[in-house]
C-alpha cells in the first residue's frame, strides 16, 4: 500500500487545529442559515417545469387551494396562509415534498426527477414604504 494512517510521512488522523477549522465552517453555515431566516416573507411564487415558467402566484393575495398544472398531473401543489408546498409527487425520493411549506423570499422546493421548481421571490429590495 502506498501509505498508511500509521506512517509518519502521511497525514495524522486528527490535529488540535482541526477543531478551529470545523468551528469556522459551522459558524459560517449557521450565519448563512440565520441570514436566510431573516429574509422577509415572499410575495411571488413561480412554478417552473422543464425550465419554463408555468404559473406565477401572488402569495399575499392567493386563496388556499390545492392545484395541479395542466399536462403535469404527476405533481400537486398546495397554497395555505401565504405559504406554498409541493403536496405530492410521483418521484422516487420525494425530497420536494419533504421540504414542506415555504414562505420566505429566496426559498425553493425542487423536484429533480420531474424537473419542477417552485421559487419564491420578494418585490425588489424595498423594506419599508412610508406614505
Amino acid at each position, binding site marked *: *500500500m502506498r501509505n498508511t*494512517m500509521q506512517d509518519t510521512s502521511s497525514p495524522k488522523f486528527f490535529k488540535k487545529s482541526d477543531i478551529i477549522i470545523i468551528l469556522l*465552517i459551522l459558524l459560517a453555515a*449557521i450565519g448563512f442559515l440565520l441570514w436566510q431566516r431573516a429574509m422577509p416573507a415572499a410575495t411571488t411564487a413561480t412554478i417552473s417545469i422543464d425550465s419554463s415558467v408555468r404559473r406565477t402566484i401572488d402569495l399575499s393575495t392567493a386563496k388556499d387551494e390545492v392545484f395541479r398544472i395542466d399536462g403535469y398531473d404527476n405533481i400537486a401543489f398546495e397554497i395555505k396562509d401565504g405559504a406554498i408546498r409541493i403536496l405530492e409527487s410521483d418521484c*422516487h425520493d420525494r425530497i420536494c415534498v*419533504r421540504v414542506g411549506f415555504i414562505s420566505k423570499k429566496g426559498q*425553493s422546493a425542487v423536484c429533480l426527477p420531474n424537473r419542477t421548481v417552485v421559487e419564491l421571490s420578494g418585490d425588489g429590495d424595498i423594506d419599508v414604504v412610508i406614505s
Partner: protein
Amino acid sequence: MPDSQHRRRELTYKIVLTAVLFALAIVLSTVENMITPTQLFAGVKLGLSNIVTMYCLFFMGVRPTAALVILKAFFTLLTRGLIASMLALAGGTFSVLIMLLLLWGGRGKISYLIISIAGAVAHNTGQLLVASWLTKSAYTLYYFPILLLSGVGAGIVTGITLRAVMPAIKRVSEYRPK
C-alpha cells in the same frame, strides 16, 4: 519469480480488491437507504459508502478510486435512474478531486478528519451544482447551508468510522503478492 508474472499478480490483486470495495460500497449505500429516516431534511444523508471511497483513495491510489466512482454511478443508473446517477457521479467526482487536492497540496499536513469533512462537503456541493444546472435555477443553492452542516457531520462520522475499521480492512494486504 519473473518480473512480468509478479506484475500480473499485483494487477489481479488490485482488480479483486477494487471489486470487493465496490461490493462493500453498494451494500453500505443500500443499508443507508434503509435506515435513513424519511422525515429528515431534504437530501441529508450520511454517505456511508464514502468510507470505501476514502479507503480506496488513501491506500490504493487514483485509478481504482476513479473506477469505483464510475461503477457506483453506473449502479445508481441501473437502480435509481438517470438523474440520481448524474448526481452520484458529480458528487463522487467533485469529492475525490477535492480530497486529492488536500492530500497532495497539503503535503501530509492536513489531517484525515479534515480531508473526510472536505470530501463530504464537496460531495454535497457537486450534487447541488448539478441540481442547479438541471433545473436552471440558482435557487437550489438555498440548500447550501443545510448541506454544509450535514457535510461536516457526515464527514466526521465517516472519517471516524474509517479510522475504526482500518485494522480490519488492512488485513487484506496479507494477500498482496510478495
